[in-house]
């Protein structure tokens, strides 16, 4: 519907402009010049020689920010590349993403940070921020050169995919990162309790004969890291909280003033363990899908601020990877393209959350958790914006997948709420014709 490719100076008119930080959505116009937001005007029809884009009442919001993406490049380009991963991101309304360090080589050296940033500049469809590894080779033994990683452009530290089992190493990481000024992101999972786990431990795992990870495997890890954050004063962020007990621990820690933040993924907020019934590998994720009680607790956590933001844990795997027996399939599902639609359908449309709050949890909140730009729609900032229709019904078809991988159980799913495209520094990208 919009043919505004590459027109960098223009007015966007007749949009419902969302200001997630202020919690409001108001009709208005936005002037974009040289890729920057120059003016945000309420209700006026601008008198101007510049091109005018009629947004037709769609919602214009700050572009989404994902702080938990697996781009897989370098090393696993068969699963995803920076080009395809960022294309999926843009298609899902994201203008900034942060990629995880479990590539090959691991992002434990400044050269890898530089490589990813250079590749992102060449082929990225959105901004790419890089998380460096906490420990060399993600082995959980020695901390990496936080200073050098930061200098090369890393904005956070994460051994995502692995828990740092050695408490002393985690203590050192939190202490040292405090000086460098980077948050340490923890993948909280006691690997002994979750040994060879295929799913959540519950009646469902008992029935299916699959080994389960008890909620305690996550809770124990969260509890330890909270104690270490208290001990060190380091800045801790808990990735993909999935259990009711985990939410509780974070809530209590925040009450006592410990510097901890937490994220939840769209799938943990909307899908539950019973969906594994037919051993569909696309529902196999780590942490695993949990029970209804956990979903309710995560949603309550979003509501009271215990869970700070939503992060996708977009984890592409090839069909070859997933076309195997359940216990041999790798964990993970893609999420960048469907996060907004899925959450809008399940939370906003069902009256559990206001649209503007969802937009905040997808943009302003994650940006501030890591301390990266984004999530604001104000004059003087880059025009990183998303245009979406919160009421449009559509079906996510296989042909729409922009990721290199198809490992999502949401193909064929009907959603309410659709991203029409993003402006990245004023440049329009759209998948909707």
């Amino acid at each position, binding site marked *: 519907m919009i043919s505004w490719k590459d027109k960098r100076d223009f007015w966007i008119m007749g949009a419902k402009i969302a200001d997630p930080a202020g919690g409001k959505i108001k009709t208005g116009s936005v002037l974009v010049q040289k890729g920057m937001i120059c003016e945000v005007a309420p209700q006026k029809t601008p008198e101007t020689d510049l091109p005018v884009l009629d947004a037709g009442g769609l919602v214009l919001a700050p572009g989404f920010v994902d702080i938990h993406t697996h781009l897989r490049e370098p090393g696993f380009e068969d699963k995803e590349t920076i080009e395809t991963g960022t294309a999926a991101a843009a298609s899902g309304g994201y203008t900034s993403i942060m990629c995880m360090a479990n590539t090959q080589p691991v992002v434990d050296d400044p050269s890898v940070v530089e490589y990813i940033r250079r590749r992102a500049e060449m082929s990225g469809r959105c901004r790419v921020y890089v998380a460096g590894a906490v420990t060399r080779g993600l082995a959980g033994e020695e901390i990496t050169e936080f200073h050098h990683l930061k200098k090369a452009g890393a904005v956070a530290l994460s051994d995502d995919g692995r828990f740092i089992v050695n408490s002393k190493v985690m203590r050192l990481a939190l202490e040292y990162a405090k000086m460098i000024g980077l948050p340490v992101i923890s993948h909280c999972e006691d690997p002994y309790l979750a040994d060879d786990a295929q799913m959540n431990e*519950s*009646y469902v795992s*008992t*029935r*299916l004969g699959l080994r389960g990870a008890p909620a305690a495997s996550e809770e124990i890890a969260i509890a330890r890291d909270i104690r270490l954050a208290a001990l060190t004063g380091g800045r801790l962020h808990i990735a993909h909280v999935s259990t009711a007990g985990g939410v509780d621990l974070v809530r209590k820690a925040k009450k006592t003033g410990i510097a901890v933040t937490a994220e939840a993924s769209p799938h943990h907020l909307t899908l539950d363990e019973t969906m594994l019934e037919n051993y569909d590998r696309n529902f196999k994720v780590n942490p695993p899908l949990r029970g209804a009680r956990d979903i309710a607790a995560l949603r309550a956590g979003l509501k009271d601020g215990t869970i700070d933001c939503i992060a996708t844990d977009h984890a592409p795997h090839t069909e070859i990877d997933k076309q*195997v*027996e359940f*216990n*041999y399939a790798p964990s993970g599902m893609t999420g960048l393209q469907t996060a907004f639609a899925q959450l809008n359908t399940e939370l906003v449309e069902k009256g559990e959350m206001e649209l503007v709050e969802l937009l905040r949890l997808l943009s302003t909140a994650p940006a501030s958790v890591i301390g990266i730009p984004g999530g604001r729609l104000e004059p003087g900032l880059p025009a990183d914006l998303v245009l979406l229709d919160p009421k449009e019904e559509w079906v996510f078809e296989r042909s729409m997948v922009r990721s290199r991988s198809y490992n999502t159980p949401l193909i064929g799913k009907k959603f309410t709420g659709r991203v029409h495209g993003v402006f990245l520094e004023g440049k329009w990208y759209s998948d909707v014709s």
Partner: protein
Amino acid sequence: MQFNQKHLLGLEDLTEGQITQILDTADNFKEVLGRKIKKVPALRGVTIANVFYEPSTRTKMSFELAEKRLSADIINFSKATSSVKKGETLRDTLENIKAMKVDIVVMRHESSGAHRFASEFLDCSIVNAGDGQHAHPTQGLLDMMTLRERWGTLRGKKVTIIGDIMHSRVARSNIWGLTKMGVEVTVCGPPTMMPVEVAKLGEGGVKLEYDLRKAISGADAINILRIQLERQKSKLFPSMREYFEVFGVSCDVLKSAPEGCLVLHPGPMNRGVEIAQEVADGDQSVILPQVANGVAVRMAVLFLIAGGTVEGDELN
């Protein structure tokens, strides 16, 4: 009456009526097995592939014999001698078998859900000969057949399953099958070998009792599971002697059960570990009749899956 199931993946999917139909058909086939000429032409022209990813003696032989008794054409595949060693995936192996135009695949696999996965891309019937820790439906059926032929009916009886319930597909299939047939099931074993919320398993659930003597005190039959020796390595119980002391079924322990309580074991047995020699070979043991019934039950399953009806003249 047509048997309306394309596959046999687990007893959880079957109704009481369908289970009864299989058991009735098996009783008929048992009569055939008592004849001088033990072969019927029921599955002539039907091709069956026996695909065994896990070692098996009893189940594999039993299926093969059942297939031969039904005059089916059979091909065998086992992991040790196949391209699996060259890195072929399950999917590719099965796609190749499919390309050879097989009518029924009988499969055993170490992964729970492997058969469900196979059903995503195979168009032939699939019979589960054991998947991981999930299900072993023909074992459940042959156990029920053995009990039913002694009792006349299963409804209202009490069966106690003893041992490593967590890792046992035999336990799960017994629980689903027996509870659907109106049997009261009790499970007994070390808590470290009980899956979480085990009491919810089956139609209407099961009873959980850690004390062996209490668990069998009202039992009409006990089903003693094989203790897998590799479990001992992961230290789910402290030692063999402690296991036998607490959960081993000796003659003395068996005295806690009512007189005439039947003893089942799916085999292979660890004599002197989960079951004492005298119990395994004693009067109450129906362990060898179980094996004999295994062939009849598998004939029934294959016959019904292939679309046969008992009213027909296939048995002659």
